[in-house]
């Protein structure tokens, strides 16, 4: 196998695997920017994966599946928003509970759906003309599906929303200093709900992508801890969608590269790699000297009550 084919294969798979990570990371970035830590990503993703598959399987419309996956993720995240924003409960525990509930529910509901083949997945496509560009063509424009491109498009859009629009200013203000935002008439509760629900929607979509595009089938626990990696990537991204893209793809590339070690390392140990990478990535971030300037939103995981500061 020539090095060219090798690079193409690795990078092409990187895009495919990095996409669900990126989608969910973008969602978590918004939730955390508004000051709500949602550790329920894994739970919302698995619910999205389950519902997306069921809809795609029964209706034959994979896109409808993805949409419903997002809606289910969004609805699911409302529980977390209610408990952590309205009831002001501990966000770490609430997020864990959401994950448990999601894994449990998807397990209960999904029992009869395991192992069924999805005949109508989202198809891989080849972009005419562009795919014949050497190297870049086959990586970017061959064998990828539309979700991959839409996600890439979403990144600059969300960056613009966060840093160049009124709602973006409000979101960042709410995550940084909710009392200030409140005193200026920004509805802190509404912004936090919106961001958590948006995060839930994207986590659901990411799950749906897994079951109707990436691996068109449904299995218990098919998210396999991706939700937790998303939490790590959000930190790695410094809560910025652009870095979120870099982080997700970098992580996916490392993931695939590690499988090139198969000749020397046993497959079980290789499977542990992504989780070790996630820790390494965080260590790398902690070493960054810009920590103070690019730190977490100041009010992250702090509930807001008017008049109590």
């Amino acid at each position, binding site marked *: 196998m020539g090095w060219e084919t090798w690079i193409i294969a690795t990078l092409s798979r990187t895009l495919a695997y990095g996409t669900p990570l990126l989608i969910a990371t973008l969602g978590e970035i918004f939730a955390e920017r508004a000051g709500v830590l949602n550790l329920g990503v894994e739970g919302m993703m698995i619910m999205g994966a389950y519902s997306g598959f069921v809809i795609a399987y029964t209706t034959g419309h994979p896109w409808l599946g993805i949409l419903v996956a997002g809606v289910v993720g969004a609805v699911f995240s409302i529980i977390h928003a209610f408990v952590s924003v309205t009831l002001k409960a501990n966000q770490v525990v609430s997020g864990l509970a959401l994950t448990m509930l999601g894994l449990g529910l998807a397990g209960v509901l999904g029992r009869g759906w395991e192992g069924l083949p999805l005949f109508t997945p989202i198809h891989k496509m080849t972009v005419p003309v562009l795919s014949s560009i050497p190297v870049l063509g086959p990586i970017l424009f061959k064998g990828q599906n539309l979700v991959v491109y839409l996600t890439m498009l979403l990144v600059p859009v969300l960056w613009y929303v966060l840093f*160049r*629009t*009124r*709602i973006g*200013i*409000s979101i*960042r*203000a709410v995550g*940084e*200093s909710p*009392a*200030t*935002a*409140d*005193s*200026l*008439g*920004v509805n802190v509760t509404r912004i936090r709900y919106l961001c958590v629900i948006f995060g839930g929607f994207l986590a659901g979509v990411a799950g749906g992508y897994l079951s109707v595009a990436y691996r068109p089938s449904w299995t218990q626990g098919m998210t396999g801890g991706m939700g937790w990696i998303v939490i790590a990537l959000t930190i790695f991204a410094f809560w910025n969608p652009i870095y979120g893209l870099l982080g997700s793809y970098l992580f996916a590339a490392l993931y695939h590269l590690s499988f090139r070690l198969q000749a020397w390392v046993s497959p079980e140990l290789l499977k542990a790699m992504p989780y070790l990478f996630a820790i390494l990535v965080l260590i790398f971030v902690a070493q960054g000297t810009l920590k*103070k300037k690019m730190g977490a939103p*100041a009010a992250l995981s702090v509930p807001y009550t*008017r*008049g109590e*500061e």
Partner: protein
Amino acid sequence: MRILYGLYQPDEGEILLNGKPIRISSPRAALTYHIGMVHQHFRLVPTLSVAENMVLGLDEGTGPFLNYRQTHKKISQIAEKYGLVVDPQAKVWQLTVGQQQRVEILKALYRQADVLIMDEPTSVLTPQEVDQLFATLRTLVDDGLTIIFITHKLDEVMEISDRVTVLRKGKAIATVNTADTNKAELAKLMVGREVVFRLEKNPVKRGEKILAVDDLQALNDRGLPALRGVSFEVYEGEILGVAGVSGNGQRELAEVLTGLRRATGGHVTLEGKDVTNRSAREIADAGVAHVPTERKTMGTVPSMTIRENLILKSYRQPPFSHGMFLDNKAAEENARAAMKEYAILAPNIDTAVKVLSGGNIQRVVLARELSGDPRLIIAAHPTYGLDVGATEQVRQILLAQRDRGAGIVLISEDLEEIMTMSDRILVLFQGQVMGIIDAEGAQIERIGLMMAGTEEEKK
């Protein structure tokens, strides 16, 4: 005043604006009535730019999109008119405190406020900056704005206001025309009894040298130099007041002296022994007490009881622990005695500190820090946010310590406090000592100039 701004709802009564009753259900509603507020602790988002802080929460008819050029133009217009110049693109955290206050006022004006509520606006300013602020306020009033100026400093009331309302325990005691009243009368209205303006103070009995600080240097949280070669000495039985506008190294000085921050250069000598960069515990054990600024976030553990908070530093030593076990009996006795001695008002010794009033929390801190008769006391803003009665008590306690022979470093942004309490006054500006002068006969204008960076001639 928070009700006027819509943060709290009134239980009863009504608010009239231009003769019409209105209901202010939220800060947003306050805005529609053109009521703006400058809070004591600025309501600015430090990570956002000045312009972004201006438009936060506003609907300017451009939908979700922003017109940065127009915003910048509008900011410059208002800024020039009232002398509030500031760079709209700067991030708020990069600005000085004085500049941040300008941004606060700008923000209210940007929102077309007719009524401007100002909560203790001068506490963070140098006397010169105060003059500048008052000039701005006068132009605003000339332009037809109404300003509600909240302060506990009587001099300011006399200087800036047209009419005064005195509040005591949530009740309006009286409203008078400033021209028809005087300081003494207002003070009487405030506390309900006659107040003595000067503290009874015994003459200083200066003893041995306790603390020597030599060419001390340290960085702030952002890694920038905060102390740049600070030197001074403190003697037994004296209070050294450290004056300065907030953010000029006072916080870092207190932290280095108590072992909470590393010195990057220079020496701290305590009774002849070099204690530079010793741990907080070693310095406390050497007889240094620390009354920190943040009594709720640092000085106490709010969710723990009075009994536990009183042994926060001495829990490792007998009688409070034997071997690895704590002695609850000893802690109980200690707490009972302390509550009595310092008149801490609480249901019992197992009350969580968080339910106490600010004054009582400060009494807990003092009771703990002053137990064991410390040689040196570092007191940072010891009366900040306390009511008149508690303030007086805290000051008396510190003076008693001084008379006992302790050396005291009193860090405060309240010049009046510094002037009344200190024996000598040190002025910090941008991490450097502008001069050390005797408090006796010190002029406030001279200290003000030093706080603004004019160095005292070396004698």
